[in-house]
């Protein structure tokens, strides 16, 4: 009985419906262009979810994640160009990306807040400089081409539909693993370090090491997204390592809603659609994106997903009781500071 009611729970039903829609998307879209857009949304969502581990759950805002995203792409592309197989190239790419994430972590976790952001930005810019100027290794501004996509178990991924399903499988694996980690004791510890670093140390937690592992997890999934990006474009250039890629990923996370699983996915969809679809109709599409971002920050500073949930709760309360809840429709109020000095967050 409980299993049946669990299956019928609105949340479970919504997730099942969403997965079903994603599975049949190529059938009802029918157009390779839009299927490719969907693929982009999926792998950028993986990238945004990876960044969200640090930004949302760890309270560490990175502006250098394009370096990790591109590290996987460049490593795989260069190994493929030297005649290695996809399995070797992709495995090595992920290992190198995780190792790079470890270097990022060791250097940047010396600070928090703006210091952390500036160190990650600096490392990202160093990697961009290497990609751009070390032409004998990276082919500089000309980038690196990849001649073919892999064929795991003989499956053809050269078409839009085949590649979309690869992206979907990876995306679902990413969301599933994130959901498990976020709900785990490690996830609770990571959120604790975000909210009360000092208290967490006094409770016996190794704050630095928790953040270090979170960085590796974030680096791994950034690498996976970077590989999908490489295979999607079959090309990588220094533009991918540029600050704009890091900023766009951060925009996806903040616009959708940090510390949620759905937020970065919605944010990725928003940015990819603006870049690819709206740009076909509006020349100054990035200005429109900027305006949308300003509106989100002004009216839903917690992001589209938590903001929509708040408005939905407010509207439902109003419909039921005929008057608004006291806390709506503004952003979520800070916990009340009743009675004296305190540091509750």
């Amino acid at each position: 009985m409980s299993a049946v009611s669990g299956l019928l729970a609105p949340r479970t039903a919504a997730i099942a419906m969403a997965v079903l829609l994603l599975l049949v998307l190529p059938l009802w879209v029918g157009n390779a262009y839009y299927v490719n857009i969907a693929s982009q949304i999926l792998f950028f969502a993986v990238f945004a979810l990876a960044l969200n581990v640090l930004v949302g759950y760890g309270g560490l805002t990175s502006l250098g994640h394009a370096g990790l995203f591109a590290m996987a792409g460049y490593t795989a592309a260069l190994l493929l160009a030297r005649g290695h197989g996809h399995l070797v190239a992709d495995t090595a790419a992920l290992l190198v990306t995780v190792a790079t994430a470890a270097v990022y972590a060791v250097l940047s976790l010396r600070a928090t807040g703006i210091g952390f952001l500036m160190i990650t930005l600096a490392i990202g810019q160093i990697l961009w400089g290497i990609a751009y100027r070390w032409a004998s290794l990276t082919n500089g501004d000309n980038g690196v081409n990849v001649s073919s996509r892999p064929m795991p178990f003989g499956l053809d991924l050269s078409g839009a539909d085949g590649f979309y399903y690869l992206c979907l499988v990876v995306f679902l694996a990413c969301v599933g693993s994130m959901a498990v980690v976020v709900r785990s004791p490690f996830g609770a510890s990571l959120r604790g370090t975000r909210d009360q670093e000092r208290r967490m140390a006094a409770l016996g937690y190794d704050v630095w090491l928790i953040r270090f592992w979170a960085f590796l997890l974030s680096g791994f999934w950034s690498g996976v997204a970077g590989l999908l990006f490489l295979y999607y474009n079959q090309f990588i250039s220094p533009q991918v390592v540029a600050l704009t890629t890091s900023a766009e990923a951060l925009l996806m996370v903040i616009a959708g809603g940090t510390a949620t699983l759905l937020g970065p996915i919605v944010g990725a969809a928003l940015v990819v659609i603006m870049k690819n679809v709206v740009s076909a109709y509006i020349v100054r599409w990035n200005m429109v994106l900027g305006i949308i971002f300003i509106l989100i920050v002004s009216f839903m500073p917690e992001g589209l997903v938590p903001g929509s949930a708040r408005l939905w709760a407010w509207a439902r309360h109003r419909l039921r009781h005929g008057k608004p809840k006291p806390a709506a429709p503004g952003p979520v109020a800070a916990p009340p500071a009743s009675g004296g000095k305190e540091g509750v967050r």
Partner: protein
Amino acid sequence: MIALEVRALKKSFGGLYVTRRVDLAVEEGERRLIIGPNGAGKTTLFNLVTGEITPDSGSIALFGRDITRKPVRTRAHLGMARTYQIITLFGRDTLRHNVMLALLGLSPRRWNPLIDFAGQRDLAEQAEAALARVGLAHLAGRPLAETSYGERRRVEIAMALAQKPRVLLLDEPFAGLSIDERQDVHRLLMAVPRDVTMVMIEHNMDVALEFAERITLLHFGEVIVEGTRAEVVAHPRTREVYLGH
């Protein structure tokens, strides 16, 4: 046995000495009160003892083991717990979650990325027992942000006690509480068993003096009077710098 021993502890910030030379020896099971005017260095002493600040010189020992250079987390694992003058809790989470985090900190399970934290029944039961101990079991599922200041003070104590400390440092646990709440917290602290050594900083003399067996008076980062409750209260220096005439 001496539970907590501080020897010749010094700490300065720039040219300002906040801890000049502090010697302190707290016996196992003792209830020690640290008093002193504002700026005497009481909270700095706690921060030095818990490892949040590194001393310039001197040593700190916990049950005979030198912990001077041990990080904060290691001291927690060795049996030291504390509460904060400024409440530092997890406002987005429930009371149960707050106390579960305190329990998880000392468990190897804190590194596990695969199990469901909320589903850890043993931790949840222990957390509810700790909350029951401070009279908050009925609020276990309530978000901390929806509780009163006095309730948060009790959650702080519940978290510290949940860690099963051998030495408990309480930084102004009565601050900001109403008379009734002070009495509740006082009763709660008096009920803590003797296997927990307690050191308390407090300005509220009504309740603090009842708690203390020995008192240490700090002034400008130095211990100027130490002794039993009666000795310290009667001491002219205490009246001069702290209690007033």
